[in-house]
């Protein structure tokens, strides 16, 4: 994974496979606190307790075809490299919360990458899931919600390539406004 947004894209796949209807991606970065936090929260099926203990072990997965899963282990690796850690809380039937922390100034902290593109891809590929994306920096915060956007535009679905490309542009502009750099 070349940057953190790709890790997010990957870890959100777990939420999608867990049948989540609402997924929140919450990013906060602060140079003052020297901390970056990525929280992904869903209302999916949750992780069984016996798996939760060892979910960042690459040889643990809920998949049946192959006994290997690398999404969470990679996130943990990147987080550990940058002086942070991954914390996962989950409850059967009500959802999972993955929180990854990073030391903002750490030389091994990966850049955030094209997070606007990742959010757009997730919206495009999962029209039946509601996404809420928040990004906070020292300068301010930005929030994008698919529910709010659908209501505001009075459309049933955001799956229209023209619209999606415009949404990406809008998110990018607002992130630039609060000083998020790729």
């Amino acid at each position, binding site marked *: *994974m070349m940057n953190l947004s*790709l890790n997010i*894209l*990957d870890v959100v*796949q777990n939420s999608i*496979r867990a049948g989540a209807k609402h997924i929140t991606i919450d990013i906060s970065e602060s140079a003052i606190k020297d901390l970056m936090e990525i929280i992904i929260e869903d209302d999916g099926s949750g992780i069984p307790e016996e798996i939760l203990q060892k979910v960042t072990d690459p040889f643990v997965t809920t998949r049946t*075809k*192959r006994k290997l*899963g*690398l*999404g969470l282990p*990679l996130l943990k690796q990147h987080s550990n490299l940058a002086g942070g850690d991954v914390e996962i809380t989950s409850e059967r039937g009500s959802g999972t919360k993955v929180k990854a922390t990073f030391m903002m100034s750490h030389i091994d902290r990966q850049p955030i990458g*094209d997070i606007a*593109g*990742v959010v*757009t*891809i997730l919206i*495009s*590929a*999962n029209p039946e899931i509601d996404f809420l994306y928040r990004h906070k920096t020292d300068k301010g915060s930005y929030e994008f919600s698919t529910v*709010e*956007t659908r209501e*505001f*535009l009075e*459309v*049933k*679905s955001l*799956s*229209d*390539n*023209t*619209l*999606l*490309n*415009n*949404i990406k*542009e*809008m998110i990018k*502009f*607002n992130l630039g406004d609060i000083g998020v750099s790729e």
Partner: protein
Amino acid sequence: MSQIKSLADLKKKREELKTGLNIRINAIDPENHVQVKVAMATCGIASGAKPIMEFFMEQLERRNIPAVVTQTGCMGYCYAEPTVEIKLPGQDPVVYGFVDLKRADLIIEKYIKTGEFVDGIIPVNYETIDNKE
């Protein structure tokens, strides 16, 4: 083009387009559209599936091809990532492997536009003997 900064700009932009072009509105019917599915598990993402998916989203729009671009999970072709499954209306899906931007462009120009196959097809058989008459 003016910068889109807020939902209000987004709405305005959409209305401009609606009047200028014959735009498809609301729910699209996937059966009559080209369906593009980009494999996006860890293997796909690590091999660069994201820029490929964005390329399809942008270029299909630019080239005026009504299409639905979505993602799938890992199909077991990790060695051949990024893989893309294309389903033309009324036809069986075809899976392309090792898709870079050049091949993605060829897929749009040749396979999607004219139905001519492009290099890189991964043989996939969706039919099983059980389904055969």
